[in-house]
Each structure stands twice: as structure tokens, then as C-alpha cells.
């Protein structure tokens, strides 16, 4: 049995026996107020607690009795033998009701009813409404408006001076309103007396709240339910979402509307020419905060309306051909580069006028660049929408029931990234439908609802966007995957792998655990292509899964492909840029390290062993090696590798230029950028470099190195 019920039952039995004692005593001392109080309280508790814990029959029954004893308390009824006997019989019935709940005995309904009637007869005639009906709890539920129809209210909350005296904290009420929707709140402080005269325990402030919400007006009123008698509240509708007239009211109208100024004030001021708000303040008709509050209201409505307009129809947008946009971005990029040269030059000239102009140019070109980048950003929603059809067709074809949801459709990405995302996402979704989500029969057998769900979501995270495909299907089976990988010769049987590493095996070329190769997937040309696709523009793929529960594949993508935040380094006089997102730290490669490593390329950084690669060697750069070199330690998917360079110059942000047809397939380089002095700097593709330098080889380094230190 429920613990609360148990406590109630014990309490109820106790109360009943106390009641009986009190009743027997009060028969001898019918004027003993204490006894009468005890009886009343017992009935009161039986009723109140009874209702709370679901003993409605007891609650109803005792309600009548409690009412009668209330009259006794107020000297409108006297205790006599009849009343006591009647009450004792009632107690027997209550006990029977409790017993029934414990599975013993029955309740005689007719007896209960006749006792109730007898009690009712005792109630003085003129007060028949004493028995109030069902006890009303709260005034309104908080059901959100189904249609999401938003209305803007102006709420004026003017507490009386004694508001604090009953323990109210008005700020909490404001917080309740804030949770209802977009809002602006202005506090009126003009009535706060001078410090000398102030009474710290009184309230001298009031608030205007402009709130746009889909909640009902009753819910708003309910916020103030406890302060109704000690404050003035007014709630007016000032704008509705679908009323789209010309501009919202002017300030003067708003102030007049609110009763803050008279018509005469309004007309007087309008006949002059200065800024309305200022003039109102100057004239003394209103003060600063009242005008500020009205301005806030105006601004709020304008913002809301603007939002409605832009999210609604698209008449204020314009289609632009992609290559026009590309050439704009290109030009902006060149401008930024030249501007950097201008800044460099002006620094050497020590001409203040030139410097000032150069600064101005820098400010404008940065603004222009940010603007152009912004134009390239598009919400991913359109891509998501395309998939709905795909999911429907595929699930029908494969006999699966899928509920497809999307989240974060308004997340914006660079348009090039969105374009490149299309194919990989299609593949991931196919996988989920084909291999992830089980057939309805299998799902029911596993205790899952027959309809599977696939969720596609997009969210910003720092300087990246995370796109994930989540299904609640069968999840990845680490054992099966490992077995298959051994079978296909991808790994050797005695290698120890973490679950994460096993999952990553599915990304290897030629891997497919599908029993049947369907026309949709299973040919093993999938995941590795997805991964190389994603990595080609600086993204990464993460897998997480729980067997039997589902799988989530997350793609981490850069926000923009046009600009790179990089670490500028030099090797043999040439410049290179390493994407800052991959860089963990830079350390010096000392003679000490080289000596200790006995010819192997590993360095000890604090407690970790980091393998490194000589880029000089890899890129076959001639020239003499400097005595002191730097290691740039990068990290991808929890693996760290260092790259040895001559010098680390510092952070550098520029526009990425594509390598062009001739150089496109050079491995290890993903693009180029032009420096301030016109030199070209190559941007390194860290992912590829990991592979090129033979990351497996470096893994061996790690294993063997452990024995060394």
C-alpha cells in the first residue's frame, strides 16, 4: 500500500478513537470549548486529509459533520445527547469506511445517508448555503493556448505601500510573468521619497510589463492572485499577432492611452516640433521613466511585428545566383588582404593621417567581411525538409514504421557546407532506416513500440555546428563489428580496442555487417565515403550507440568554409597555416627530447607521450634545420600528434582560397591563403597528414614507448 495512505489510515484510526473519547466527555460537559474544538479539528482533519489521499467518501461524509460542529463552535448550536449519539454512530461508519479500504467488512450506504440527513436537519435553516459545493482549487489550469495565438498585454502592477508587510516578494511575480513570453519591464522609481524620508519597509516602486504571450489573460491575473487586495493591477491588450496595421501607436498616443497625460497635454505638445518624448519630459507632464516605459512598449511591439513578418512570408527576400555570391565573397576576401597590407605599411610610415585612414578602412572591410559571411549563412531547415520524403519512401520500401522528427531547423550554416552535407546525411539516414531501426515485429518482440523514431537535429556549439542523426533502433553490436573487422582483415585478432574504437571500425573502407545487401545500402561503400567527405571540409564524425537502444551519429562541422582561424608557422622560409581548431598546444622540441627518444620521433609532454612528424621531411623542404624547433601538438578524435616546424608565428585569420584545378589533389593541403605581404601560405589538412605519416606506425610508437620511460 502507498506510504501516504498508510500514514493517513493510522492517523484516521487514532483520530476516531480520540473523537470517541472527546464525545463521551462533552456529553458531560457540553460547554467545554476545548472539547468542542478538539471534535471540530478531528472532523476537519479527517475531511481534509481524506480528500487529499483519495478517501472521497470519508471526506464527503465528514464535511457535513464538520459544518455542524462549526456552528457549535460559534455558539449557534448546543451539544446534547442526541448530537453525541448521532456523532458516535457517524464514527462507526467512518471506521467501517476505513476498514473497507483495508479489505475488511462493508459499508452500509443507507445508514451513512440517513446519518447525513440527520446532521443536515440540525443546521439552522437560514444558512443552507453553508454547505458549499465542491471545493474550488485553482482558478485556471495552465493550459497553453493550442493555436499559439500571441497577444501583447500591457500590465501595470502598482503595489500599495504595505505590500511587503505580508511577506510578498514582487520580483518573484515579475519572474513568473517573464516565463510567459517575450517581455520588457520598466520599473517606476519616481515615487521613491528622499533618503531622509524613506521608509525602508514600504514599497514605493511600481512596474509596467509589456508581455507578448500565448497564455490566457486569466493565467496572467492568477500571477497576482495573492496581492489583489494590496496592489492595483491593470491588464490591457495592446496588440494582437494578426492585426497588422500601419505603424504601432505613437508615443503620445501610448501615454494618452495609459492615462498618463491628458488630451490637452497631448495636443499642446504636438503643436511644437521637438522630439516628442523629450518635450513631454521637459513640459513636466510626465517624467523620464514614463516616457521610457512608453518607448519600450513601442519598441517591443515593433520587434515582435518585425519577427512575425520575417518568419511569415518571404516577400522581403531576394534570390541570388550562387556564383554572384561567391565572387562577392572573393572580392571581400581580397579587400581584407589588401587592407592588412595597408595597416602594415602605415605602421612603418608613422604618418598619423595615413594611420587613421588605414584604421577606418580596416573597420569597414571587417564589417563588410562579416556581412558577406552572414549572407552565406542559411538555415539548414530546407535540407531537413527534403528528407521527410526520403524517409517516407524508404521506410515504406523496407517495411519499417518510422516517426521522423527534426530539431534546430533554424540553425544556420555556410551554404557550401549545407550543399556538401546533403549526400552524407542521406547515407546516414538510409543506414538508420535500413540497419538501425528494426521491423515492427522485432521491435514489439523486444518490448519497444512498433514505430521507430529517427531524429535529425542541428545545434550550434562554439565555432562549430553539430548535426546528429539519432535512431532508437537496435544499436551497434560491438562483438559483431569486431568479428566482421577481423574477418575482413581490417584488424588483427589480438588487438585490444575500446568500445569507441570498435564503433569507429564501421567507418573503414569495405566494411559492412549487413547480412543482405539491399538496393538501398549494404554494399560497403558507405560510411568511409561519408567520413572522407565530411573531413574534406574540416568536419569530423562521432559515433555513440547503446545496443538495443539506438545509435547517434554526430557530424561536427565548421561554421564557415570561407574563413579560417589558423596558427601560422614557418618551415624553411615558407608559411603554413594549421587550423586552430585542431591545435592543442605548442612546445619546444629540445635536444633533451631528441636524445632521450633514441631516434624515435616521440616527445614527452608532461605525463603524455606524443609522437611527432617532421613536416620538413614530409614536404621535402630543403634548407638547414634550425637548432631549436617547435612542435605543434594537434588532436583529432582524441588522438594527439605533433608536427615539427621551425617557428610558430601566431594566430592568423584569413580568407581561404581554393587551390585550383591543378593543385586540388595534393594531399595534406586543403587550401591556401594570401598573407599581408602577398606571400602564399598553404593550409594544412591535419586529418590527411595523420594518415599520410602512417598513424598506425605512430600507434606502435606509443605502445613501445610506454616501456621506455
Amino acid at each position, binding site marked *: 500500500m502507498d506510504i*501516504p495512505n498508510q500514514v493517513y489510515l493510522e492517523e484516521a484510526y487514532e483520530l476516531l478513537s480520540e473523537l470517541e473519547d472527546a464525545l463521551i466527555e462533552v456529553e458531560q460537559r457540553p460547554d467545554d470549548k476545548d472539547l468542542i474544538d*478538539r471534535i471540530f479539528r478531528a472532523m476537519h*482533519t479527517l475531511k481534509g486529509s481524506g480528500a*487529499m489521499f483519495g478517501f472521497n467518501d470519508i*471526506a464527503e461524509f465528514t464535511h457535513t459533520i464538520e459544518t455542524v460542529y462549526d456552528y457549535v463552535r460559534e455558539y449557534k448550536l448546543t451539544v446534547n445527547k442526541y448530537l453525541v449519539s448521532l456523532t458516535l454512530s457517524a464514527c462507526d461508519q467512518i471506521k467501517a469506511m476505513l476498514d473497507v479500504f483495508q479489505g475488511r467488512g462493508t459499508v452500509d450506504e443507507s445508514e451513512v445517508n440517513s446519518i447525513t440527513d440527520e446532521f443536515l436537519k440540525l443546521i439552522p435553516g437560514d444558512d443552507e448555503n453553508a454547505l458549499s459545493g465542491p471545493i474550488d*482549487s485553482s482558478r485556471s489550469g495552465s493550459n497553453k493556448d493550442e493555436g499559439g495565438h500571441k497577444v501583447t498585454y500591457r500590465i501595470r502592477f502598482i503595489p500599495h505601500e504595505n505590500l511587503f508587510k*505580508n*511577506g510578498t516578494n514582487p520580483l518573484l511575480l515579475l519572474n513568473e510573468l517573464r516565463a510567459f513570453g517575450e517581455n520588457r519591464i520598466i520599473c517606476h522609481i519616481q515615487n521613491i521619497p528622499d533618503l531622509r524620508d524613506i521608509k525602508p*519597509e514600504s514599497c514605493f516602486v511600481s512596474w509596467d510589463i509589456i508581455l507578448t504571450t500565448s497564455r490566457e489573460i486569466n493565467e496572467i491575473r492568477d500571477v497576482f492572485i495573492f496581492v489583489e487586495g494590496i496592489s492595483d493591477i491593470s491588464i490591457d491588450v495592446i496588440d494582437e499577432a494578426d492585426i497588422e496595421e500601419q505603424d504601432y501607436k505613437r508615443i503620445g498616443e501610448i501615454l494618452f492611452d495609459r492615462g498618463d497625460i491628458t488630451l490637452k497635454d497631448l495636443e499642446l505638445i504636438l503643436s511644437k516640433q521637438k522630439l516628442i518624448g523629450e518635450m513631454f519630459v521637459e513640459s513636466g507632464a510626465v517624467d523620464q521613466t514614463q516616457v521610457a516605459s512608453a518607448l519600450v512598449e513601442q519598441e517591443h511591439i515593433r520587434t515582435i511585428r518585425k519577427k512575425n513578418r520575417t518568419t511569415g512570408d518571404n516577400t522581403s527576400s531576394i534570390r541570388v545566383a550562387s556564383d554572384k555570391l561567391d565572387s562577392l565573397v572573393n572580392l571581400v576576401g581580397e579587400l581584407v588582404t589588401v587592407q592588412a597590407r595597408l595597416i602594415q605599411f602605415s605602421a612603418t610610415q608613422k604618418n598619423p593621417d595615413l594611420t587613421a585612414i588605414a584604421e577606418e578602412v580596416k573597420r569597414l572591410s571587417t564589417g563588410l567581411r562579416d556581412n558577406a559571411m552572414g549572407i552565406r549563412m542559411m538555415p539548414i531547415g530546407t535540407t531537413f525538409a527534403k528528407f521527410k520524403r526520403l524517409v517516407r519512401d524508404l521506410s515504406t520500401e523496407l517495411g519499417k514504421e518510422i516517426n521522423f522528427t527534426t530539431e534546430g531547423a533554424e540553425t544556420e550554416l555556410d551554404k557550401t557546407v549545407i550543399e556538401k552535407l546533403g549526400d552524407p546525411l542521406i547515407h546516414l539516414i538510409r543506414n538508420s532506416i535500413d540497419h538501425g531501426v528494426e521491423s515492427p515485429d522485432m521491435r514489439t518482440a523486444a518490448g519497444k513500440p512498433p514505430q521507430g523514431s529517427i531524429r535529425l537535429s542541428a545545434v550550434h556549439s562554439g565555432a562549430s555546428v553539430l548535426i546528429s542523426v539519432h535512431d532508437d533502433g537496435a544499436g551497434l553490436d560491438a562483438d559483431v563489428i569486431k568479428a566482421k573487422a577481423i574477418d575482413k582483415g581490417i584488424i588483427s585478432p589480438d588487438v585490444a580496442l575500446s568500445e569507441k574504437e570498435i564503433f569507429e571500425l564501421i567507418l573503414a573502407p569495405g566494411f559492412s555487417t549487413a547480412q543482405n545487401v539491399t538496393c538501398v545500402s549494404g554494399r560497403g561503400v558507405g560510411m568511409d565515403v561519408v567520413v572522407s567527405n565530411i573531413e574534406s571540409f574540416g568536419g569530423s564524425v562521432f559515433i555513440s550507440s547503446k545496443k538495443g537502444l539506438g545509435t547517434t551519429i554526430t557530424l561536427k562541422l565548421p561554421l564557415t568554409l570561407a574563413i579560417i582561424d589558423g596558427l601560422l608557422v614557418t618551415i624553411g622560409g615558407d608559411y603554413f597555416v594549421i587550423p586552430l581548431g585542431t591545435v592543442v598546444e605548442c612546445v619546444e622540441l629540445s635536444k633533451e627530447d631528441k636524445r632521450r627518444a633514441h631516434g624515435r620521433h616521440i616527445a614527452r609532454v608532461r605525463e603524455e607521450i606524443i609522437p611527432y612528424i617532421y613536416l620538413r621531411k614530409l614536404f621535402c623542404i630543403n634548407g638547414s634545420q634550425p637548432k631549436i624547433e617547435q612542435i605543434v601538438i594537434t588532436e583529432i578524435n582524441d588522438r594527439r600528434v605533433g608536427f615539427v616546424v621551425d617557428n610558430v608565428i601566431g594566430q592568423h585569420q584569413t580568407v581561404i582560397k581554393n587551390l585550383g584545378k591543378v593543385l586540388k589533389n595534393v594531399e595534406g593541403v586543403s587550401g591556401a591563403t594570401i598573407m599581408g605581404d602577398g606571400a602564399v601560405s598553404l593550409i594544412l589538412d591535419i586529418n590527411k597528414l595523420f594518415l599520410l605519416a602512417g598513424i598506425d606506425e605512430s600507434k606502435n610508437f606509443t605502445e613501445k614507448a610506454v616501456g621506455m620511460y
Partner: protein
Amino acid sequence: MTKNILSVDDSASIRQMVSFTLEKEGYGVIEASDGNDALARIQTKMIDLVITDLHMPNMDGIGLIKALRADSQYRFTPIVMLTTESNSSKKDEGRRAGATGWIVKPFKPEQLVAVVKKLIG
């Protein structure tokens, strides 16, 4: 910092229900069985909100509210009355004594939590 709530009611089952509901929401709950007990408890621990029944032996709810408001430490502490009467006389009496708000019994746990959040956040 945890907010502490004093739950005053002569019915153990009500006190238990209040404790259970509010402790789940992260509040600390101290129980008292009547007005006198309540006044003793507040000497040993700082209370942020008082929830009290009105009908109790020794010192009833109205008496407790008045005593709390007379105490300089608790003059501005929110006090909620638990009442089964839906008519206004008891509510008014409570308010005149200085109560902040009320909850009508029987109440659902969510209603209790909503009122507590409204008064102390």
C-alpha cells in the same frame, strides 16, 4: 543554498505529504505539529517560508501568523495558510493577520509546488 520551509499541521499525513512533495523539489522541510511547536522550531533554524494549517490545538494558524509577524526576523517571511474553507472569511482573517497567500485543501502536489515557487522561487 537550500531554502527551508516550515510545515505546520496537526495532521501527520498532511505534514508528510508536504515534506515529500517539497523535498523532491529540492527544498528543506521542517515539521511542526502546532503553533507553539512551530515557534520553537524557528529558534533553531532559519526558515524561508511557512506553510500552516489554520485549525490546530495549543496555538492555531491565525495565532501563529500573528506571532511570526511580530517577530522582527520573520516580519517579511512568506506565510501560506492551508484551509478547507473556500469562503472568504477565514482567508480574510488570515490575510489581516499577515498571511501572504493560501492553498485550499484538498490540493494536488503540483499546486503546492506552484505556490511555493511563486513565493520564494
